[in-house]
């Protein structure tokens, strides 16, 4: 309103809103501050050795170091991330029961990664697997898929 003079009262409001804006901005900045920009976490990719060396079944060779199970079925190899989709514990493979079972809330998964029992809402994640020219499996835990139909695709599956 161009004609209206700036009264002292009006100006006071401007002053207070400046302070309020500052508080809001500093709150937002503090929140942003808490998001780290770099992480010191190990690489998500690893070499799992010769693909040919995996017999049919679930291999627990990499669970301790990389938290990944390598599974071979009649057609080929895929890699399951050993992180329960419920709340992130590491399930154990029970060969006699043919299941992965989680120690935290009792979720059960099949070797395909599908939930059989317990509270887990989704199937286990499958990691990206590649076959290097040397015949080694390269596994990338940063690229994940769990939807049936997609997870069997060539990115998450190697037929050797």
């Amino acid at each position, binding site marked *: 309103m161009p004609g209206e003079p700036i009264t002292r009262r009006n100006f006071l409001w401007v002053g207070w809103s400046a302070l309020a804006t500052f508080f809001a901005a500093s709150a937002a900045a503090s929140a942003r501050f808490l998001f780290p920009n770099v992480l010191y976490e190990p690489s998500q990719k690893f070499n799992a050795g010769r693909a040919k*060396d*995996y*017999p*049919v079944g679930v291999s*627990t*060779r990499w669970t*301790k170091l990389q938290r990944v199970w390598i599974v071979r079925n009649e057609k080929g190899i895929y890699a399951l991330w050993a992180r329960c989709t419920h709340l992130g514990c590491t399930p*154990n493979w029970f060969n*006699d029961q*043919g299941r992965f079972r989680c120690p935290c809330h009792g979720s059960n998964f099949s070797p395909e990664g599908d939930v059989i029992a317990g509270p887990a809402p989704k199937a286990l994640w499958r990691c990206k697997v590649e076959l290097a020219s040397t015949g080694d499996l390269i596994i990338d835990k940063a690229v994940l898929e769990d939807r049936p139909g997609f997870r069997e695709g060539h990115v998450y599956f190697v037929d050797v």
Partner: protein
Amino acid sequence: MRKLFYISNFGILGVFLLAIGLDHKREWKKHQRGYYEMEAARLEEELKSAGDEAERKSIQSQIRSFRRRPLEIKQIITPDLGRVDRCVTCHVGMDEFTNPSLSNPFAEHPFKAHPKSIAKSHSFQQYGCVACHAGQGLATTAEAAHGQVEHWEEPLLKAPYLEAACAKCHGNFESLSETKTAALGKKLFEKHGCIGCHAVNGRGGVISVDLGDIADKPLARIDFSKSGLDRKDWNIKNWIETHLTKDPMELVPNDPEGHLGEPISPSGMPPFAGEINAAQAQAITTYLLTMSKQPLPHTYYVPGAPAKERSSGDPAKRGQMVFEKYGCAGCHGLGGAAGRRNFNALADKQTRMEDGRVPSLVRVVGTYSPEELKKKIQEGVPSSAISKFKPEGPTPPLYMPGWSEKIKGPELDDLASYLFSVADQDSGGW
């Protein structure tokens, strides 16, 4: 109210004094004081026979110093290994500052001195104690320090298992006099064909787990319930050893009858208890305990001499070496004579699934022509192609991997010659 006032006030003071008392009365103090007393008493004996005045004076002052010495926690900090070991707090005889000569006449624990020869080449200040002996270096009570408590997965290693620690760094352990057990273990590991099923760091068979880091296996992943071990003995050493002294089928029975779903055969590991004695089992265990991925400073490694390329003019002899190199004995038995157990595989004179056997090479090889035999070795027999005793029973755990990428060329020819040389000529298969 007044009564409560007295109870609470005296109670607080009393319990706090009790806490201080308990805190003050530490187990290690008894041992340290005991050691100083023993040293003083020994010196007093020495004093009796000392002639020289100067010598007497010196001994007397030593006695006084032992009697008056304040009790303290002694520790070795090893920067390379990042460890703090407080073992010498009780094992004072092994503290190179209290007992510089590292020798004393005390035979009983924990006062004994450390064997000198090893101490000389392995400076305590560099290696500490736990790097070799395992246990819990930070602890100051016997039970906890020896690691015989819950939530400590590396209990003290005693002889001969202790040799595993030597062999972790000493690539040349087979030629050392101190590591005879570990060396024997390695020899037996190779002789009995363990490598046929178990790879070590990616080299070897694929039928069972890679043993390259078996010593680090987390106990949370082991089901000890069928092992017959006391809870306090649940550790990786005993887990390995019971696999050799008992029938692994009892340790890991799995579900061959299919109560839980698909029938799963028990552990495929054949029983070795009849073939190796207790001392040999100990030796193999010792050797396997060296297999750890826990990092050590690279300067600590002592390279071993390169394995001698054994050779012979006789193709059958060379073939026998190939047979051993790839662990064929693991399934086919020593010299291919007697196939080992393969649960639910079809065999002759079979009444139970447990009677399933891997073919005895001595008996079947004669039925093949050399070309057929080589083809068989190269292609292997997948588990789906093995005839079952009980068709609805579990898939047999052992199978013949295809060796085409590993055994080829002259090695394959030699192996075939060897097998034909041991084959039973007049048998028509098993």
